[in-house]
Protein backbone atom coordinates (compact mmCIF):
# COMPACT_ATOMS: atom_id res chain seq x y z
CA UNK A 1 0.00 0.00 0.00
CA UNK A 2 1.21 3.46 -0.80
CA UNK A 3 4.60 2.43 -2.05
CA UNK A 4 3.50 1.80 -5.60
CA UNK A 5 3.23 4.89 -7.73
CA UNK A 6 -0.27 6.09 -8.43
CA UNK A 7 -0.77 7.17 -12.02
CA UNK A 8 -1.32 10.88 -12.05
CA UNK A 9 -4.13 12.74 -13.70
CA UNK A 10 -2.23 12.87 -16.94
CA UNK A 11 -2.34 9.11 -17.09
CA UNK A 12 1.30 8.30 -16.47
CA UNK A 13 2.92 7.18 -13.28
CA UNK A 14 4.80 9.39 -10.91
CA UNK A 15 5.10 13.13 -10.92
CA UNK A 16 3.70 15.39 -13.62
CA UNK A 17 6.22 16.82 -16.08
CA UNK A 18 8.82 18.92 -14.40
CA UNK A 19 7.53 22.03 -16.12
CA UNK A 20 5.02 22.26 -13.28
CA UNK A 21 7.74 22.91 -10.77
CA UNK A 22 10.39 24.92 -12.51
CA UNK A 23 12.19 26.12 -9.41
CA UNK A 24 12.77 22.83 -7.73
CA UNK A 25 13.77 21.10 -10.91
CA UNK A 26 16.17 23.74 -12.06
CA UNK A 27 19.56 22.00 -12.29
CA UNK A 28 21.27 24.70 -10.33
CA UNK A 29 18.88 24.30 -7.44
CA UNK A 30 19.24 20.53 -7.52
CA UNK A 31 23.01 20.97 -7.41
CA UNK A 32 22.64 23.38 -4.55
CA UNK A 33 20.40 20.96 -2.71
CA UNK A 34 22.90 18.16 -3.03
CA UNK A 35 26.01 20.16 -2.14
CA UNK A 36 24.69 22.11 0.77
CA UNK A 37 21.98 19.78 1.94
CA UNK A 38 19.74 22.73 1.43
CA UNK A 39 16.15 22.45 0.34
CA UNK A 40 13.74 24.98 -1.01
CA UNK A 41 10.98 25.98 1.36
CA UNK A 42 7.68 24.87 -0.01
CA UNK A 43 5.75 26.91 2.51
CA UNK A 44 6.81 30.20 4.04
CA UNK A 45 4.69 32.00 6.57
CA UNK A 46 5.63 35.41 7.87
CA UNK A 47 4.01 37.38 10.69
CA UNK A 48 0.66 35.93 9.91
CA UNK A 49 -2.28 37.47 11.72
CA UNK A 50 -6.00 37.04 11.51
CA UNK A 51 -8.61 38.97 13.43
CA UNK A 52 -12.25 37.97 13.23
CA UNK A 53 -15.05 40.42 13.70
CA UNK A 54 -17.61 38.50 15.63
CA UNK A 55 -20.99 39.96 16.34
CA UNK A 56 -22.33 39.17 19.75
CA UNK A 57 -25.82 39.41 21.14
CA UNK A 58 -28.95 38.84 19.08
CA UNK A 59 -30.81 42.08 19.72
CA UNK A 60 -28.33 44.74 20.65
CA UNK A 61 -25.63 43.69 18.28
CA UNK A 62 -22.14 44.71 19.12
CA UNK A 63 -18.88 43.82 17.47
CA UNK A 64 -16.01 42.10 19.10
CA UNK A 65 -12.57 41.47 17.72
CA UNK A 66 -11.15 38.01 18.15
CA UNK A 67 -7.47 37.62 17.45
CA UNK A 68 -7.37 34.04 16.21
CA UNK A 69 -3.83 34.03 14.84
CA UNK A 70 -1.42 36.48 16.33
CA UNK A 71 1.72 36.93 14.30
CA UNK A 72 3.08 33.48 13.52
CA UNK A 73 5.99 32.65 11.26
CA UNK A 74 7.27 29.28 10.15
CA UNK A 75 8.46 27.48 7.07
CA UNK A 76 8.10 23.97 5.74
CA UNK A 77 10.60 22.32 3.47
CA UNK A 78 9.80 20.32 0.40
CA UNK A 79 8.80 16.77 1.36
CA UNK A 80 8.52 17.56 5.03
CA UNK A 81 5.68 16.47 7.29
CA UNK A 82 5.11 19.40 9.60
CA UNK A 83 2.77 19.41 12.58
CA UNK A 84 0.84 22.32 13.97
CA UNK A 85 -0.06 21.27 17.46
CA UNK A 86 -2.26 23.03 19.96
CA UNK A 87 -5.34 22.79 22.16
CA UNK A 88 -8.86 23.77 21.04
CA UNK A 89 -9.48 27.22 19.69
CA UNK A 90 -5.89 28.43 19.41
CA UNK A 91 -6.03 29.19 15.71
CA UNK A 92 -4.97 26.00 13.93
CA UNK A 93 -7.92 25.83 11.58
CA UNK A 94 -7.73 29.55 10.97
CA UNK A 95 -4.11 29.15 9.96
CA UNK A 96 -4.88 26.27 7.63
CA UNK A 97 -7.73 28.21 6.03
CA UNK A 98 -5.36 31.04 5.25
CA UNK A 99 -2.78 28.64 3.86
CA UNK A 100 -5.35 27.04 1.60
CA UNK A 101 -6.63 30.36 0.15
CA UNK A 102 -9.94 30.00 1.94
CA UNK A 103 -9.45 32.94 4.27
CA UNK A 104 -7.71 36.26 3.71
CA UNK A 105 -5.09 37.09 6.35
CA UNK A 106 -5.51 40.32 8.26
CA UNK A 107 -1.79 40.87 7.80
CA UNK A 108 1.37 38.95 7.09
CA UNK A 109 2.47 36.94 4.13
CA UNK A 110 2.20 33.33 2.98
CA UNK A 111 4.09 31.89 0.04
CA UNK A 112 3.49 28.34 -1.11
CA UNK A 113 5.45 26.85 -4.00
CA UNK A 114 6.68 30.36 -4.64
CA UNK A 115 3.14 31.71 -4.99
CA UNK A 116 1.40 34.26 -2.84
CA UNK A 117 -1.76 32.74 -1.36
CA UNK A 118 -3.81 35.89 -1.78
CA UNK A 119 -2.59 37.23 -5.11
CA UNK A 120 -1.94 33.92 -6.83
CA UNK A 121 -4.79 31.94 -5.26
CA UNK A 122 -6.03 30.77 -8.64
CA UNK A 123 -2.67 29.39 -9.69
CA UNK A 124 -2.11 27.79 -6.33
CA UNK A 125 -5.40 25.94 -5.92
CA UNK A 126 -4.74 23.17 -8.45
CA UNK A 127 -1.42 22.44 -6.75
CA UNK A 128 -2.60 21.99 -3.20
CA UNK A 129 -5.03 19.62 -1.54
CA UNK A 130 -6.70 19.98 1.82
CA UNK A 131 -9.11 18.45 4.25
CA UNK A 132 -10.81 19.96 7.24
CA UNK A 133 -11.47 17.25 9.78
CA UNK A 134 -14.83 15.65 10.35
CA UNK A 135 -17.45 13.99 8.25
CA UNK A 136 -18.92 16.99 6.50
CA UNK A 137 -17.83 18.21 3.11
CA UNK A 138 -18.86 15.20 1.05
CA UNK A 139 -22.00 14.64 -0.97
CA UNK A 140 -23.77 12.06 1.12
CA UNK A 141 -26.25 11.11 -1.58
CA UNK A 142 -23.46 10.12 -3.94
CA UNK A 143 -21.30 7.03 -3.76
CA UNK A 144 -17.67 7.38 -2.79
CA UNK A 145 -16.66 6.92 -6.42
CA UNK A 146 -19.13 9.55 -7.64
CA UNK A 147 -17.91 11.98 -5.02
CA UNK A 148 -14.43 11.59 -6.41
CA UNK A 149 -15.66 11.92 -9.98
CA UNK A 150 -17.46 15.11 -9.07
CA UNK A 151 -14.46 16.64 -7.37
CA UNK A 152 -12.45 15.54 -10.38
CA UNK A 153 -14.68 17.69 -12.56
CA UNK A 154 -14.12 20.64 -10.23
CA UNK A 155 -10.40 20.25 -10.79
CA UNK A 156 -10.90 20.02 -14.55
CA UNK A 157 -9.49 16.51 -14.65
CA UNK A 158 -10.02 14.34 -17.68
CA UNK A 159 -12.94 12.03 -16.77
CA UNK A 160 -11.14 9.01 -18.26
CA UNK A 161 -7.95 9.60 -16.33
CA UNK A 162 -9.95 10.14 -13.16
CA UNK A 163 -11.81 6.89 -13.69
CA UNK A 164 -8.53 5.04 -13.86
CA UNK A 165 -7.09 6.82 -10.86
CA UNK A 166 -10.03 6.40 -8.49
CA UNK A 167 -9.59 2.66 -7.79
CA UNK A 168 -5.94 3.26 -6.87
CA UNK A 169 -6.86 6.03 -4.49
CA UNK A 170 -9.63 4.00 -2.92
CA UNK A 171 -7.22 1.16 -2.42
CA UNK A 172 -4.75 3.46 -0.80
CA UNK A 173 -7.29 4.62 1.76
CA UNK A 174 -8.74 1.16 2.24
CA UNK A 175 -12.13 1.75 0.64
CA UNK A 176 -11.79 -0.45 -2.43
CA UNK A 177 -14.79 -2.62 -1.71
CA UNK A 178 -17.04 0.17 -0.48
CA UNK A 179 -16.53 2.75 -3.20
CA UNK A 180 -19.84 2.11 -4.94
CA UNK A 181 -21.88 2.63 -1.78
CA UNK A 182 -23.48 5.92 -0.88
CA UNK A 183 -21.45 8.01 1.50
CA UNK A 184 -24.40 8.40 3.88
CA UNK A 185 -23.81 4.78 4.86
CA UNK A 186 -20.13 5.28 5.59
CA UNK A 187 -18.73 5.28 9.09
CA UNK A 188 -16.95 8.36 10.31
CA UNK A 189 -13.56 6.86 9.63
CA UNK A 190 -14.55 5.86 6.11
CA UNK A 191 -15.71 9.39 5.37
CA UNK A 192 -12.47 10.81 6.64
CA UNK A 193 -10.48 8.39 4.52
CA UNK A 194 -12.57 9.29 1.50
CA UNK A 195 -11.65 12.90 2.22
CA UNK A 196 -8.00 11.96 1.92
CA UNK A 197 -8.65 10.33 -1.43
CA UNK A 198 -10.52 13.46 -2.50
CA UNK A 199 -7.64 15.69 -1.51
CA UNK A 200 -5.22 13.51 -3.51
CA UNK A 201 -7.33 13.31 -6.63
CA UNK A 202 -5.48 15.98 -8.56
CA UNK A 203 -2.11 14.79 -7.27
CA UNK A 204 -1.27 17.98 -5.35
CA UNK A 205 2.27 18.76 -4.32
CA UNK A 206 1.25 20.10 -0.94
CA UNK A 207 -1.33 18.70 1.43
CA UNK A 208 -3.04 20.34 4.39
CA UNK A 209 -4.69 18.04 6.84
CA UNK A 210 -6.64 19.79 9.57
CA UNK A 211 -7.28 17.26 12.33
CA UNK A 212 -7.58 14.28 10.03
CA UNK A 213 -8.22 11.91 12.92
CA UNK A 214 -10.93 14.03 14.53
CA UNK A 215 -13.45 11.87 16.31
CA UNK A 216 -11.98 8.55 15.25
CA UNK A 217 -11.54 5.61 17.60
CA UNK A 218 -7.95 4.60 18.37
CA UNK A 219 -7.88 1.93 15.68
CA UNK A 220 -9.40 4.19 13.05
CA UNK A 221 -7.00 6.95 13.98
CA UNK A 222 -4.06 4.58 13.71
CA UNK A 223 -5.15 3.38 10.27
CA UNK A 224 -5.36 6.97 9.15
CA UNK A 225 -1.90 7.70 10.48
CA UNK A 226 -0.54 4.83 8.44
CA UNK A 227 -2.12 6.34 5.35
CA UNK A 228 -0.63 9.73 6.14
CA UNK A 229 2.79 8.26 6.65
CA UNK A 230 2.54 6.55 3.28
CA UNK A 231 1.73 9.88 1.68
CA UNK A 232 5.02 11.19 2.77
CA UNK A 233 6.68 8.38 0.92
CA UNK A 234 5.06 9.90 -2.18
CA UNK A 235 7.16 12.99 -1.63
CA UNK A 236 4.31 15.26 -0.70
CA UNK A 237 4.84 18.23 1.56
CA UNK A 238 2.33 17.92 4.35
CA UNK A 239 1.07 20.20 7.06
CA UNK A 240 -0.97 18.48 9.71
CA UNK A 241 -2.81 19.90 12.69
CA UNK A 242 -3.73 17.92 15.72
CA UNK A 243 -4.21 18.29 19.40
CA UNK A 244 -2.64 14.96 20.17
CA UNK A 245 1.01 15.15 21.01
CA UNK A 246 1.61 11.48 20.34
CA UNK A 247 0.12 11.86 16.90
CA UNK A 248 2.44 14.72 16.06
CA UNK A 249 5.29 12.71 17.54
CA UNK A 250 4.47 9.63 15.50
CA UNK A 251 4.14 11.45 12.21
CA UNK A 252 5.96 14.73 12.06
CA UNK A 253 9.56 15.63 11.45
CA UNK A 254 8.98 19.05 12.85
CA UNK A 255 6.32 20.45 15.12
CA UNK A 256 5.22 23.94 15.97
CA UNK A 257 3.25 24.22 19.16
CA UNK A 258 0.65 26.93 18.92
CA UNK A 259 -1.15 28.49 21.83
CA UNK A 260 -3.54 31.43 21.78
CA UNK A 261 -2.60 32.35 18.26
CA UNK A 262 1.15 32.31 18.82
CA UNK A 263 3.82 29.74 18.20
CA UNK A 264 5.31 28.93 21.59
CA UNK A 265 7.86 26.35 20.48
CA UNK A 266 9.11 24.80 17.30
CA UNK A 267 11.45 21.95 16.54
CA UNK A 268 11.80 18.22 16.06
CA UNK A 269 10.02 15.98 18.54
CA UNK A 270 13.39 15.36 20.20
CA UNK A 271 14.10 19.06 20.50
CA UNK A 272 10.72 19.72 22.03
CA UNK A 273 11.26 16.92 24.46
CA UNK A 274 14.49 18.49 25.62
CA UNK A 275 12.44 21.42 26.93
CA UNK A 276 11.40 19.21 29.79
CA UNK A 277 14.45 16.99 30.04
CA UNK A 278 15.54 18.61 33.29
CA UNK A 279 12.16 17.93 34.87
CA UNK A 280 10.49 14.94 36.38
CA UNK A 281 6.82 14.19 36.25
CA UNK A 282 5.03 13.35 39.45
CA UNK A 283 1.76 11.51 38.98
CA UNK A 284 -0.62 11.55 41.91
CA UNK A 285 -3.83 9.55 41.78
CA UNK A 286 -6.68 11.21 43.61
CA UNK A 287 -10.32 10.42 44.28
CA UNK A 288 -12.72 13.33 44.65
CA UNK A 289 -12.44 17.04 43.94
CA UNK A 290 -9.23 18.98 44.44
CA UNK A 291 -10.06 22.18 42.63
CA UNK A 292 -9.66 24.24 45.80
CA UNK A 293 -6.09 23.01 46.24
CA UNK A 294 -4.91 23.78 42.72
CA UNK A 295 -3.92 27.43 43.20
CA UNK A 296 -1.76 26.54 46.20
CA UNK A 297 -0.19 23.63 44.31
CA UNK A 298 0.54 25.77 41.28
CA UNK A 299 2.16 28.36 43.53
CA UNK A 300 4.73 25.88 44.85
CA UNK A 301 8.24 26.61 43.59
CA UNK A 302 8.64 22.88 42.97
CA UNK A 303 5.68 22.87 40.57
CA UNK A 304 6.43 24.01 37.04
CA UNK A 305 3.27 22.90 35.33
CA UNK A 306 0.23 21.05 36.51
CA UNK A 307 -2.55 19.32 34.65
CA UNK A 308 -5.31 16.90 35.50
CA UNK A 309 -6.25 13.78 33.61
CA UNK A 310 -9.50 11.92 34.17
CA UNK A 311 -9.18 8.15 34.32
CA UNK A 312 -12.35 6.25 35.13
CA UNK A 313 -13.38 7.04 38.72
CA UNK A 314 -10.12 8.65 39.63
CA UNK A 315 -8.19 11.68 38.53
CA UNK A 316 -4.48 11.96 38.06
CA UNK A 317 -2.53 15.09 38.82
CA UNK A 318 0.39 15.45 36.45
CA UNK A 319 2.96 17.71 38.03
CA UNK A 320 6.15 18.72 36.30
CA UNK A 321 8.81 19.49 38.79
CA UNK A 322 12.53 20.23 38.70
CA UNK A 323 12.80 18.78 42.21
CA UNK A 324 11.62 15.30 41.26
CA UNK A 325 10.95 12.91 44.10
CA UNK A 326 11.91 15.46 46.71
CA UNK A 327 8.82 17.50 45.91
CA UNK A 328 6.45 14.65 46.65
CA UNK A 329 6.17 15.24 50.38
CA UNK A 330 5.40 18.95 49.94
CA UNK A 331 2.76 18.15 47.40
CA UNK A 332 1.14 15.50 49.54
CA UNK A 333 1.04 17.90 52.46
CA UNK A 334 -1.02 20.30 50.37
CA UNK A 335 -3.32 17.46 49.43
CA UNK A 336 -4.03 16.68 53.06
CA UNK A 337 -7.59 15.45 53.47
CA UNK A 338 -7.90 14.30 49.85
CA UNK A 339 -8.02 10.56 49.17
CA UNK A 340 -4.76 9.87 47.42
CA UNK A 341 -3.96 6.67 45.53
CA UNK A 342 -0.71 5.73 43.86
CA UNK A 343 2.07 8.26 43.57
CA UNK A 344 4.76 7.83 40.95
CA UNK A 345 7.73 9.80 39.69
CA UNK A 346 8.74 9.27 36.07
CA UNK A 347 10.79 10.67 33.21
CA UNK A 348 9.04 13.27 31.05
CA UNK A 349 7.56 12.38 27.66
CA UNK A 350 6.76 14.54 24.69
CA UNK A 351 3.22 14.84 25.99
CA UNK A 352 4.65 16.52 29.08
CA UNK A 353 6.59 18.95 26.94
CA UNK A 354 3.35 19.85 25.22
CA UNK A 355 1.49 20.27 28.49
CA UNK A 356 4.20 22.51 29.76
CA UNK A 357 4.13 24.63 26.64
CA UNK A 358 0.41 25.19 26.62
CA UNK A 359 0.02 25.31 30.41
CA UNK A 360 2.94 27.60 30.92
CA UNK A 361 1.10 30.29 29.04
CA UNK A 362 -2.08 29.91 31.03
Amino acid at each position, binding site marked *: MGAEAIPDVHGHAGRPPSSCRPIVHCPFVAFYEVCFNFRMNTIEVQDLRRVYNASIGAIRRSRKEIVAVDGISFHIEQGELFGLLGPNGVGKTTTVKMLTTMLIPTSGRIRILGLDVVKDAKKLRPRIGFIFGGERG*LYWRLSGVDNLR*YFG*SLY*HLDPDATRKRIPKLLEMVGLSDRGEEKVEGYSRGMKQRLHIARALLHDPEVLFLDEPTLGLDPVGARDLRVIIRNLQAENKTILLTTHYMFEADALCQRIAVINKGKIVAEGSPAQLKSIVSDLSVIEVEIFGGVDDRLPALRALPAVDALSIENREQKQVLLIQSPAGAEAVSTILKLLDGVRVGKVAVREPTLEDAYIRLVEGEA
Partner: protein
Amino acid sequence: MKELLRDLGLNVRIFFQGAYLSYLALFAWIRPPHYIATKVVGPVFYMIFFVLMGAYVAGRNDPSFYVIGNAMQTAALSGVFGVSMSIDGDRWGGTLIYLFGSPANRLALFLGRAFMHILDGVFGVIIALGWGLLIFGLDLSQTHLPALALTILITVFSTAGMGLMLGCLGLITRNVMLVNNTIFFLLFVFSGANVEIGSLPGWAQAVSSIIPLTRGIAAARLLIGGESLAAVGPLLWGEFLVGAAYAAIGFLMFRQFEIIAIRRGTLEAF
Protein backbone atom coordinates in the same frame (compact mmCIF):
# COMPACT_ATOMS: atom_id res chain seq x y z
CA MET B 1 -6.98 24.15 -34.05
CA LYS B 2 -7.16 20.43 -33.43
CA GLU B 3 -5.95 20.94 -29.89
CA LEU B 4 -8.46 23.66 -29.33
CA LEU B 5 -11.23 21.31 -30.39
CA ARG B 6 -9.93 18.57 -28.15
CA ASP B 7 -9.77 20.96 -25.22
CA LEU B 8 -13.26 22.09 -25.97
CA GLY B 9 -14.45 18.50 -26.12
CA LEU B 10 -12.82 17.77 -22.81
CA ASN B 11 -14.32 20.82 -21.17
CA VAL B 12 -17.75 19.91 -22.44
CA ARG B 13 -17.41 16.42 -20.99
CA ILE B 14 -16.23 17.81 -17.69
CA PHE B 15 -19.16 20.20 -17.66
CA PHE B 16 -21.70 17.45 -18.25
CA GLN B 17 -20.14 15.18 -15.70
CA GLY B 18 -20.21 17.93 -13.09
CA ALA B 19 -23.74 18.98 -14.01
CA TYR B 20 -25.06 15.45 -13.81
CA LEU B 21 -23.34 14.53 -10.56
CA SER B 22 -24.23 17.77 -8.83
CA TYR B 23 -27.85 17.16 -9.76
CA LEU B 24 -27.78 13.75 -8.12
CA ALA B 25 -25.83 15.08 -5.17
CA LEU B 26 -27.94 18.08 -4.33
CA PHE B 27 -31.45 17.40 -5.48
CA ALA B 28 -33.69 16.94 -2.49
CA TRP B 29 -36.52 15.11 -4.25
CA ILE B 30 -34.37 12.61 -5.98
CA ARG B 31 -35.96 9.59 -4.29
CA PRO B 32 -38.54 8.15 -6.72
CA PRO B 33 -41.71 8.28 -4.58
CA HIS B 34 -41.01 11.84 -3.56
CA TYR B 35 -40.17 12.82 -7.11
CA ILE B 36 -43.31 11.29 -8.55
CA ALA B 37 -45.51 12.87 -5.89
CA THR B 38 -44.12 16.34 -6.48
CA LYS B 39 -43.64 16.37 -10.20
CA VAL B 40 -46.01 13.88 -11.71
CA VAL B 41 -49.04 13.62 -9.44
CA GLY B 42 -49.02 17.06 -7.81
CA PRO B 43 -49.67 19.08 -10.97
CA VAL B 44 -52.82 17.06 -11.74
CA PHE B 45 -54.39 18.23 -8.53
CA TYR B 46 -53.52 21.81 -9.19
CA MET B 47 -55.05 21.50 -12.62
CA ILE B 48 -58.27 19.90 -11.41
CA PHE B 49 -58.57 22.45 -8.64
CA PHE B 50 -58.16 25.45 -10.88
CA VAL B 51 -60.30 24.12 -13.72
CA LEU B 52 -63.14 23.57 -11.26
CA MET B 53 -62.52 26.88 -9.51
CA GLY B 54 -62.40 28.63 -12.84
CA ALA B 55 -65.69 27.10 -13.92
CA TYR B 56 -67.44 28.20 -10.71
CA VAL B 57 -65.81 31.51 -9.92
CA ALA B 58 -64.87 32.96 -13.28
CA GLY B 59 -67.57 31.11 -15.19
CA ARG B 60 -64.97 29.89 -17.62
CA ASN B 61 -65.91 26.64 -19.24
CA ASP B 62 -62.79 26.21 -21.33
CA PRO B 63 -60.35 24.21 -19.21
CA SER B 64 -57.41 24.74 -21.58
CA PHE B 65 -56.63 28.15 -20.06
CA TYR B 66 -55.94 26.54 -16.67
CA VAL B 67 -54.45 23.36 -18.06
CA ILE B 68 -51.80 25.27 -19.99
CA GLY B 69 -51.21 27.75 -17.19
CA ASN B 70 -50.68 25.09 -14.56
CA ALA B 71 -48.67 22.84 -16.81
CA MET B 72 -46.27 25.69 -17.53
CA GLN B 73 -46.21 26.64 -13.87
CA THR B 74 -44.68 23.24 -13.05
CA ALA B 75 -41.55 24.57 -14.75
CA ALA B 76 -40.98 26.55 -11.58
CA LEU B 77 -40.83 23.37 -9.50
CA SER B 78 -37.55 22.48 -11.15
CA GLY B 79 -36.48 25.96 -12.08
CA VAL B 80 -37.06 27.64 -8.76
CA PHE B 81 -37.03 24.92 -6.12
CA GLY B 82 -34.68 22.45 -7.73
CA VAL B 83 -32.09 24.96 -8.90
CA SER B 84 -32.06 27.10 -5.79
CA MET B 85 -31.70 24.05 -3.59
CA SER B 86 -28.80 22.89 -5.71
CA ILE B 87 -27.02 26.19 -5.24
CA ASP B 88 -27.82 26.50 -1.57
CA GLY B 89 -27.30 22.82 -0.80
CA ASP B 90 -23.54 23.02 -0.49
CA ARG B 91 -23.86 25.07 2.64
CA TRP B 92 -25.68 22.26 4.41
CA GLY B 93 -23.27 19.62 3.31
CA GLY B 94 -20.23 21.64 4.35
CA THR B 95 -18.89 21.32 0.81
CA LEU B 96 -18.60 25.03 0.07
CA ILE B 97 -15.04 25.18 1.27
CA TYR B 98 -14.00 22.38 -1.08
CA LEU B 99 -16.00 23.87 -3.91
CA PHE B 100 -14.38 27.28 -3.64
CA GLY B 101 -11.04 25.75 -2.81
CA SER B 102 -11.01 24.11 -6.23
CA PRO B 103 -9.93 25.81 -9.44
CA ALA B 104 -13.34 25.05 -10.97
CA ASN B 105 -14.53 27.57 -13.51
CA ARG B 106 -17.13 29.44 -11.48
CA LEU B 107 -19.46 30.18 -14.36
CA ALA B 108 -19.49 26.57 -15.51
CA LEU B 109 -20.00 25.44 -11.94
CA PHE B 110 -22.84 27.87 -11.49
CA LEU B 111 -24.65 27.10 -14.72
CA GLY B 112 -23.94 23.41 -14.30
CA ARG B 113 -26.07 23.42 -11.19
CA ALA B 114 -29.07 24.45 -13.28
CA PHE B 115 -28.49 22.26 -16.30
CA MET B 116 -30.15 19.00 -15.30
CA HIS B 117 -33.00 20.82 -13.62
CA ILE B 118 -33.80 22.46 -16.92
CA LEU B 119 -34.08 19.08 -18.63
CA ASP B 120 -36.03 17.81 -15.68
CA GLY B 121 -38.33 20.81 -15.79
CA VAL B 122 -39.03 20.35 -19.50
CA PHE B 123 -39.92 16.76 -18.76
CA GLY B 124 -42.24 17.92 -15.97
CA VAL B 125 -44.11 20.36 -18.20
CA ILE B 126 -44.54 17.72 -20.88
CA ILE B 127 -45.96 15.28 -18.35
CA ALA B 128 -48.35 17.93 -17.08
CA LEU B 129 -49.50 18.73 -20.61
CA GLY B 130 -49.97 14.99 -21.06
CA TRP B 131 -52.37 15.00 -18.13
CA GLY B 132 -54.17 17.86 -19.79
CA LEU B 133 -54.56 15.82 -22.97
CA LEU B 134 -55.72 12.79 -21.07
CA ILE B 135 -58.06 14.28 -18.51
CA PHE B 136 -59.19 17.55 -19.97
CA GLY B 137 -59.01 16.78 -23.64
CA LEU B 138 -56.47 19.49 -24.38
CA ASP B 139 -56.41 19.99 -28.12
CA LEU B 140 -52.99 20.14 -29.72
CA SER B 141 -54.13 19.55 -33.28
CA GLN B 142 -53.57 23.20 -34.23
CA THR B 143 -50.22 23.41 -32.47
CA HIS B 144 -46.81 23.78 -34.02
CA LEU B 145 -45.18 21.27 -31.68
CA PRO B 146 -41.48 22.17 -32.16
CA ALA B 147 -42.38 25.78 -31.36
CA LEU B 148 -44.19 24.63 -28.24
CA ALA B 149 -41.16 22.58 -27.24
CA LEU B 150 -38.94 25.64 -27.66
CA THR B 151 -41.36 27.69 -25.59
CA ILE B 152 -41.25 25.14 -22.81
CA LEU B 153 -37.46 25.04 -22.88
CA ILE B 154 -37.14 28.81 -22.73
CA THR B 155 -39.68 29.09 -19.96
CA VAL B 156 -37.96 26.49 -17.83
CA PHE B 157 -34.66 28.20 -18.52
CA SER B 158 -36.01 31.50 -17.32
CA THR B 159 -37.41 30.03 -14.11
CA ALA B 160 -34.02 28.44 -13.62
CA GLY B 161 -32.44 31.88 -13.96
CA MET B 162 -34.65 32.97 -11.10
CA GLY B 163 -33.71 29.81 -9.19
CA LEU B 164 -30.01 30.55 -9.59
CA MET B 165 -30.52 33.97 -8.12
CA LEU B 166 -32.67 32.67 -5.28
CA GLY B 167 -30.12 30.00 -4.48
CA CYS B 168 -27.49 32.68 -4.04
CA LEU B 169 -29.88 34.67 -1.93
CA GLY B 170 -30.19 31.50 0.14
CA LEU B 171 -26.42 31.25 0.45
CA ILE B 172 -26.33 34.79 1.76
CA THR B 173 -29.46 34.86 3.91
CA ARG B 174 -29.26 31.22 4.98
CA ASN B 175 -32.97 30.75 4.59
CA VAL B 176 -33.66 29.54 1.11
CA MET B 177 -36.99 27.83 1.68
CA LEU B 178 -38.77 30.88 3.01
CA VAL B 179 -37.64 32.94 0.06
CA ASN B 180 -38.50 30.15 -2.35
CA ASN B 181 -42.01 29.58 -1.15
CA THR B 182 -42.73 33.26 -1.30
CA ILE B 183 -41.43 33.51 -4.83
CA PHE B 184 -43.20 30.37 -5.98
CA PHE B 185 -46.54 31.78 -4.94
CA LEU B 186 -45.65 35.14 -6.33
CA LEU B 187 -45.17 33.43 -9.66
CA PHE B 188 -48.38 31.54 -9.15
CA VAL B 189 -50.38 34.71 -8.71
CA PHE B 190 -48.67 37.08 -11.10
CA SER B 191 -47.58 34.87 -13.98
CA GLY B 192 -51.07 34.60 -15.35
CA ALA B 193 -51.22 30.85 -14.87
CA ASN B 194 -54.70 31.12 -13.42
CA VAL B 195 -55.84 34.66 -14.04
CA GLU B 196 -55.92 36.93 -17.05
CA ILE B 197 -53.04 39.35 -16.73
CA GLY B 198 -55.30 42.00 -18.21
CA SER B 199 -57.65 41.72 -15.28
CA LEU B 200 -54.93 42.46 -12.73
CA PRO B 201 -54.38 45.97 -11.34
CA GLY B 202 -51.64 48.05 -12.91
CA TRP B 203 -48.99 47.49 -10.27
CA ALA B 204 -49.58 43.74 -10.46
CA GLN B 205 -49.17 43.83 -14.20
CA ALA B 206 -45.87 45.57 -13.65
CA VAL B 207 -44.79 42.69 -11.43
CA SER B 208 -45.96 40.22 -14.05
CA SER B 209 -43.78 41.82 -16.64
CA ILE B 210 -40.55 41.36 -14.73
CA ILE B 211 -40.97 37.76 -13.59
CA PRO B 212 -40.29 34.55 -15.46
CA LEU B 213 -43.22 32.45 -16.74
CA THR B 214 -45.56 35.30 -17.69
CA ARG B 215 -44.48 35.53 -21.32
CA GLY B 216 -43.84 31.80 -21.61
CA ILE B 217 -47.39 31.00 -20.51
CA ALA B 218 -48.83 33.56 -22.85
CA ALA B 219 -46.76 32.16 -25.73
CA ALA B 220 -47.81 28.60 -24.95
CA ARG B 221 -51.49 29.59 -24.95
CA LEU B 222 -51.11 31.33 -28.29
CA LEU B 223 -49.24 28.42 -29.85
CA ILE B 224 -51.75 25.87 -28.66
CA GLY B 225 -54.44 28.15 -29.99
CA GLY B 226 -52.86 27.83 -33.43
CA GLU B 227 -50.50 30.80 -33.68
CA SER B 228 -47.17 30.53 -35.48
CA LEU B 229 -43.69 30.65 -33.96
CA ALA B 230 -43.12 34.05 -35.56
CA ALA B 231 -46.15 35.43 -33.78
CA VAL B 232 -44.80 34.49 -30.35
CA GLY B 233 -41.19 35.42 -31.15
CA PRO B 234 -41.17 38.65 -29.14
CA LEU B 235 -42.70 36.87 -26.14
CA LEU B 236 -40.05 34.16 -26.28
CA TRP B 237 -37.23 36.67 -26.52
CA GLY B 238 -38.69 38.53 -23.60
CA GLU B 239 -38.97 35.37 -21.54
CA PHE B 240 -35.40 34.43 -22.37
CA LEU B 241 -34.01 37.84 -21.46
CA VAL B 242 -35.85 37.92 -18.14
CA GLY B 243 -34.31 34.55 -17.25
CA ALA B 244 -30.86 35.59 -18.44
CA ALA B 245 -31.07 38.77 -16.38
CA TYR B 246 -31.87 36.84 -13.21
CA ALA B 247 -29.13 34.34 -13.94
CA ALA B 248 -26.65 37.19 -14.45
CA ILE B 249 -27.64 38.85 -11.19
CA GLY B 250 -27.37 35.44 -9.54
CA PHE B 251 -23.89 34.90 -10.87
CA LEU B 252 -22.73 38.29 -9.63
CA MET B 253 -24.12 37.41 -6.21
CA PHE B 254 -22.40 34.03 -6.34
CA ARG B 255 -19.02 35.62 -7.03
CA GLN B 256 -19.61 38.25 -4.41
CA PHE B 257 -20.61 35.62 -1.88
CA GLU B 258 -17.34 33.77 -2.43
CA ILE B 259 -15.23 36.90 -2.14
CA ILE B 260 -16.95 38.14 1.00
CA ALA B 261 -17.02 34.75 2.67
CA ILE B 262 -13.29 34.33 2.16
CA ARG B 263 -12.64 37.80 3.47
CA ARG B 264 -14.84 37.49 6.54
CA GLY B 265 -14.32 33.83 7.26
CA THR B 266 -18.00 32.95 6.97
CA LEU B 267 -17.69 30.19 4.42
CA GLU B 268 -18.78 27.66 6.97
CA ALA B 269 -21.36 29.62 8.90
CA PHE B 270 -24.82 28.09 8.69
